[in-house]
């Protein structure tokens, strides 16, 4: 039981469940299917972006350029829709993903090959990627009327009661889970971030894992770029401005350690869900939506403080009595599981 209570994911899930139940009791609108479906559709991009960011953070990195990447690749997808309306939808989406992947690979190359700190690289590319939108379009935006009908309809379609963005988010989440848990490369992210020296002893290449992480973050940003632009029916340079920090916040709330090597798919999904629920719950509770950001901030701080407490390392155990005590307390903890 104690082990279950120690699981961060479970605590977070419990808190969320209690919160949902309480808000639902206050106003049943909140737990109606339509509201939940809206909330999930709204949060689907955050799910995917947070998972991709988690992979980057696992390698002890950070990618501040994801939102700019999302805006640029979404914009390119919208341009394709505007100027080549006959191109099949799949190719339009693929264009977005490909642009995102390319931008991610640029980040990865600069970080893994030249060894420039990730925060510097992605701060630079953040500015470049967003600015490229203006250069590409000369300051114009692509409006709903200029994008293809099918292009915009796709994210609004529902299938078996769920909208396509939710399905895509579910698919991407499953893929991430499979990749991170069932492949050697996936476990390699944990190894490189957890202990780079040990990873080297195990023959795992840090550079390759880093390159891969930023490329994945890029491709996912590209996919989300299409979804964002198509769903809101507008593409311009300011979309998702500042969103990179929301994405990182979801990771931190989900228990991803900024020091690398720690983080789970379930935790990150819950972290994103948390932010999604907060956003939807406020209007239901008749609280001003302006509380959104303050609550997110408070939750991030609470999450890091709790994480740090859990991660704090004890003193060395040299005295025999201390070693015995250390062991017995460990043994007791284990017996309690």
């Amino acid at each position, binding site marked *: 039981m104690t082990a279950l209570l120690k699981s961060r994911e479970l605590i977070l899930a419990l808190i969320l469940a209690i919160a949902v139940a309480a808000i639902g009791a206050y106003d049943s609108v909140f737990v109606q299917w339509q509201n939940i479906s809206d909330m999930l559709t709204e949060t689907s991009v955050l799910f995917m972006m947070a998972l991709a960011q988690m992979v980057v953070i696992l390698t002890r990195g950070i990618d501040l350029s994801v939102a700019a990447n999302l805006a640029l690749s979404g914009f390119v997808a919208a341009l394709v829709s505007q100027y080549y309306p006959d191109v099949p939808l799949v190719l339009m989406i693929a264009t977005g993903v490909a642009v995102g992947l390319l931008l991610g690979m640029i980040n990865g190359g600069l970080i893994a090959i030249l060894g420039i700190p990730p925060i510097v690289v992605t701060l630079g590319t953040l500015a470049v990627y967003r600015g490229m939108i203006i250069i590409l379009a000369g300051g114009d935006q692509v409006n709903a009327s200029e994008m293809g009908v099918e292009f915009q309809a796709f994210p609004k379609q529902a299938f078996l009661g769920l909208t396509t963005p939710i399905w895509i988010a579910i698919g991407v989440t499953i893929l991430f889970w499979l990749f991170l848990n069932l492949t050697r490369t996936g*476990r390699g992210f944990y190894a490189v971030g957890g202990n780079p020296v040990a990873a080297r002893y195990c023959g795992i290449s840090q550079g390759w894992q880093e390159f891969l992480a930023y490329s994945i973050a890029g491709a996912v940003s590209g996919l989300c770029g299409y979804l964002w632009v198509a769903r809101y029916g507008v593409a311009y340079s300011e979309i998702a401005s500042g969103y990179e920090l929301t994405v990182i916040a979801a990771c931190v709330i989900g228990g991803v350690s900024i020091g690398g090597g720690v983080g789970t798919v379930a935790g990150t999904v819950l972290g994103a869900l948390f932010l999604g629920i907060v956003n939807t719950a406020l209007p239901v509770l008749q609280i001003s939506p302006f509380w959104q950001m303050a609550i997110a901030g408070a939750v991030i701080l609470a999450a890091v403080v709790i994480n740090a407490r859990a991660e704090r390392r004890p003193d*060395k155990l*040299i005295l025999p009595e201390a070693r015995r005590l250390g062991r017995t307390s460990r043994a007791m903890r284990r017996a309690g599981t």
Partner: protein
Amino acid sequence: MPDPVLTLTGVSKSFPGVRALHDVSLSLTPGRVTALIGENGAGKSTIVKILTGIYRPDAGEIRVKGEARHFASPRDAWAAGIAAIHQETVMFDELTVAENIFMGHMPVGPTGAVDWAGMRARSADLLNRIDAPIPPAFPLKRLSVAQKHLVEIARALSHDAQVVIMDEPTAALSANEIDDLFRIVAQLKAEGHAIVFISHKFDEIFRIADDFVCLRDGEKVGDGPIASVNEAQLVRMMVGRPVDQVFPKREVPIGDVVLSVKNLSNATEYADVSFDLRKGEILGLYGLVGAGRTEAMQGLFGITPMTRGTVTLEGRRLSIGSPSDAIRAGISYVPEDRQDQGAILSLGIRENITLANLGKYVRGLFLSRALEMTETRRLGRRLAVKAANWEQRLAELSGGNQQKVVIAKWLATRPKVIVLDEPTKGIDIGSKAAVHDFIGELAGDGLAVVLISSELPEVMGLADRLIVMKEGRMVEEFQRGRWSAEEIVGAATGARKEAA
């Protein structure tokens, strides 16, 4: 005797300023345990790193089952059947036991997916083979140090290693845990593995080893069956030259008590450390790695404040809550870990030397470069620091010169008591002699010196008095002239009490 599974012939390795190994040859036989013996810095770790593909030798040959091999990476070494259990466990705390065993070569199913069930089952098998019923799905961070060692052994076995290297596996283990480990070593031996066993504890070496190889200053100074030598002979081989010739002890008049420490304790690391230290005296602090010597002295210096005990300096009770308190009172501590704790490599010599008492070089509001320079020149010359200029960054100096700069930094604070923690660890022989000479000089100038050292000849050569620590406590005190190497080592390992 079966053919050797692995031979090293004429292996040499140098680093800038240090000759780590010179022309070392050895061979390992299946089913036998070879003890690798030598002091810190004798080259044992370098051999381990060469065998595991982390370093490449400058010269010499590695043959596995008679076939010459070059290890370009750790993977090559595994492939050749060599696996090591490192001194500091290099593992992944946040991952599970099974993943730690198989990281880098996880079993995959036909789809390319990691076969978790198979990996856990194989981990359980490996752990059962060494009688270590640790659940493979357990996160590693919840294991004890001893259990982590067992996981490392399982990792070595997972490579199907013919040669298993154990680098001080018992340093942090209790007596029972050591028994368990030795049972496993005996079992591996019976299964035909060749084992390299590195330890400072002679009782263990005589218990487990079949052969020995003794290194000193990077050279092999002896080898053969362990049965052909006794402990005294091994100590002499390790230490080399008769002690007193190498370290000419200065005759220094010993004055009044300067520092008086009573019952220094903290919760988990050291307990009831008490001693008096006199002007001009050098007090040696000997013990195995991890005996709590460093921790106790860092407690005295305010790094990890003590929870109990009193410190009196020249009759005045001190309360030391931080290093700056200690520095102000006149206590200096030259840390063991030069790279991380002592030197600031990216700053220059002047900036390092003046760092611990910057206030002294301030005129008005500003630092006076002239004052800094005067002190730098004075101490730099006194310690014979070799550099192109006093602004040269420490990263560009040799280890020995870096250490001299670090010592100079602490002398600049004009201390009354100076604690030197392994001051000659990892520096070349030339600088070593200079540092030894200098320690004597300090005592001659009236400083009270505490010398922590794991090198027996060093403490025996320099110290007036010697305290031996074991498992966080003082176990025995020796006076100069009334000690022997065997007695001291015996006290530190606990072998002596059992014999008595």
